């Protein structure tokens, strides 16, 4: 029988402060990168505008492409080349929505430089639709988090754990966003889909741990809360790591073999799933515990205060 991470007794809860610090540092780096880049870099899906993807044979130089674009007088054009210079993404604005002849004119320009250009795709989004899509994307992310919070709070009868799970998954999405921002990748509709998938998936691991905590609380009445959580996390550790590893195999394969269209999508998933596994082991239950302890202490203090007042009054 092959085994790993079986019978471990790591003391996760005792060291939780280090993990909090680590997560806060990662989150701050995300915020810093977002500030430096003036917010997330949005794709044409949200900003409106056009992006044309073309292939070259043989490979073209950036200067040639820039030159061809400049001769076409495309408004605020930007050129981005693939690593091997056989593919270019040309971003531009148009007055009105007429993109009909852009490719054929561009193709003619490139021909004079001895490069054969083939059309791959063109995306044009009007500013109105872009704004709507942005709003819809924000709502979708918000809604999925709220619904997951409600579901966990209902299933586990503890809002502290629901909140712990949601904070953890918010943290996962935030860091995925941060990595994309640091790498200067664009946030498109597909990347938003990846974020939503991260939300659904990251909370999976957390739930498995929470389920075990729920089960163990009933069984191990002598243990402290922290001990129960440590035991539960350790018991589910092999499963958490196995599953994450296996899912990562799919994602890695999508990242390397899935082609350029899925590149940013699988990158976001890759980061989100790794961070999601980390947070469900180290962060989610820790936050759940601290929140619930804080709540218990607060209630106790309020009760103590109430008793005190009564005592004073009666004497």
């Amino acid at each position, binding site marked *: 029988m092959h085994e790993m991470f079986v019978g471990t007794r790591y003391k996760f809860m005792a060291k939780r402060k280090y993990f909090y610090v680590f997560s806060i540092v990662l989150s701050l780096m995300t915020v810093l990168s977002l500030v430096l880049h003036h917010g997330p870099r949005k794709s044409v899906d949200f900003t409106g505008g056009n992006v044309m993807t073309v292939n070259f044979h043989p490979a073209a130089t950036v200067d040639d492409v820039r030159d061809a674009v400049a001769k076409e007088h495309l408004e605020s054009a930007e050129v981005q080349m693939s690593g091997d210079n056989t593919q270019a993404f040309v971003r531009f604005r148009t007055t009105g929505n007429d993109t009909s002849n852009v490719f054929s004119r561009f193709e003619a320009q490139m021909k004079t430089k001895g490069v054969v250009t083939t059309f791959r795709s063109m995306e044009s989004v*009007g500013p109105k639709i872009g704004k709507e899509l942005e709003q819809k994307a924000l709502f979708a992310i918000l809604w999925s988090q709220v619904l997951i919070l409600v579901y966990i709070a209902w299933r586990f009868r503890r809002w502290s754990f629901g909140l712990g799970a949601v904070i953890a998954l918010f943290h996962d999405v935030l860091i995925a966003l941060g990595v994309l921002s640091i790498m200067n990748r664009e946030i498109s509709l597909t990347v938003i889909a990846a974020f939503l998938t991260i939300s*659904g998936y990251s909370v999976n691991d957390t739930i498995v741990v929470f389920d075990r905590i729920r*089960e163990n609380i009933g069984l191990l009445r002598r243990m402290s809360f922290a001990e129960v959580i440590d035991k539960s996390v350790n018991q589910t550790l092999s499963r958490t790591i196995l599953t994450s590893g296996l899912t990562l195999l799919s994602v890695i394969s999508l990242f390397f073999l899935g082609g350029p269209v899925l590149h940013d999508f699988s990158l976001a998933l890759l980061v989100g799933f790794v961070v999601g596994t980390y947070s469900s082991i180290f962060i989610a239950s820790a936050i759940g515990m601290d929140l619930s302890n804080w709540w218990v202490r607060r209630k106790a203090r309020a009760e103590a205060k109430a008793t005190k007042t009564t005592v004073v009054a009666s004497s």
Partner: protein
Amino acid sequence: MTNLRIKWVLFVFTVLLFGWYLLPTIRFYSLPANPPAAVAQTTTPNDAPPPETTAFNVPIPTGTPVDSANFRYRGSDNPSIAKLRENAMKLGLDLQGGVYLVYEVDLSKIPPKDRKGDEVDRAIEIIRNRIDQFGVTEPLIQKQGQNRIVVQLPGITDPARAKQLIGKTARLEFRLVKTRQELFQALAKVDQVVAGVALNDSASADTSAVDSLLAGKNPFSGLFQASQEDAGYVYAPAENLDKAKAYLRRIQSLDRPAVLPGGTILLWGERAFGSRSGNPGQYLYAVSVSSDLTGEHVADAQVGFGLEPSRPNSAGISLTFDKRGSAIFTRLTGNNVGRQLAIVLDNTVKSAPVIRDKIRGGRASITGIDTDVEAKDLGIVLRAGALPTDLTLQEERTVSASLGSDSIHKGILASVVGFLAIAAFMIFYYQLSGALSVFALILNVFYLVATLGMLRGTLTLPGIAGIALTIGMAVDTNVLILERIREELRGGKTVRGAIEAGYSRAFTTILDTHSTTLISAVVLFQFGTGPIKGFATTLMIGLVANLFCAVFFTRLIYDSMMARRPLEKMSI
């Protein structure tokens, strides 16, 4: 025992059922995507600008014509293939290439008092009519929200032409239908051209090509059935449509019909028009080249009932012309009592009512329409002629066919590699139990693809990614169960006890993990457009299929194994 047997019957039944739904998808995608090059040449509209004069100067097509109607390919009009296509899983525009357009109908330009509330429907009708002429297989035209129209054109690689066609102002005309004799003259002319005998050039005709083509003397008109009465139209049964359309396109472009002897032009009727027999063939009309009355003179067209006293419940259209229109209409009807007057929208004959009387006063009614729906549609067509709205293009996404096929190959490769890696690990780590999980994963993908076919769903590139992810997430359920069984075995339980406890304890967790992922998928489905909807769909179907495969199916196997004799050891 009997309990197990029922479960097996249930399992085999689902496999057969889903297999049945998967079959059209497999059969459809094993057909070649396109006809051979020579056919493609004749079936795609000419890219060269149409000749300046609409007279009859047609180049003889080069290359040997191939019989497109008998060649089975995915885009064919052949009824059996059309049926297959309808029942197969669809490929998204990002995988087969195509154009996705979102138009907005600008209602603000219409004064409120002139708004009739059906502006968007009229615009959709116009767009649909034009797309039908374009010869796109499976176009999708939908209303989105209040005033948007989404147009999806699979396989179109020249968006400029599509946009040009859609953006044009609608042209509604009334044209007299020619007599049977004039129709036959026109058809005979097309026969000649198709046979390779050009009007002004008979010497250069390649006789061998002509001979091979001309088994019968009338290659074009032989494809049609003449109607019984003395009418100016013929009917092309569904199986001949491909060929007939390809032939006619040799002599005329989409928006410029060729003028045949006697001032006749040949126009197609609407698809399935007048086909209550269930055979979706199409009529071809011979109509007058000069338009007798145009749509701008139609003041209003409303659906009414009881316009014909003898049939009080049947729907009809009451038509009102403006002043000038009513004068033309009076003269037109007066001179042509007993003939048919075709209602032509953008070169498609929408209906061809018979003129019963000379109609004065600018008010006419069209009766004898079979269903209320047909009446409503015809009303929209008649009002469409004077569509006062502007269509503005808000969003356009074009994917070339080459990018589409690259995406399919890369997506499938990535999924297969991911799957193999997972399978190898599962078998290494869990041995026979792992192998069973791998089989459950394969079953999962089988149900997933079959369900897409059953729902006539669309597979997109993110959808393929969704399948890859489903494999990754589905294996989680197996790992949860197997780890739990191992734990119970370590705790000293018998194999039977460990399996029972493993399944029942893991089940609540499995339910929870599936619920949260489902929440995300549903939100995604609500929010997403096109490709992303495809991702959400595969994710949702995959989750449900997984519950069946990973929980019901694997348990069934373990139970069946234990039913014979108690297991002492488990390969896990």
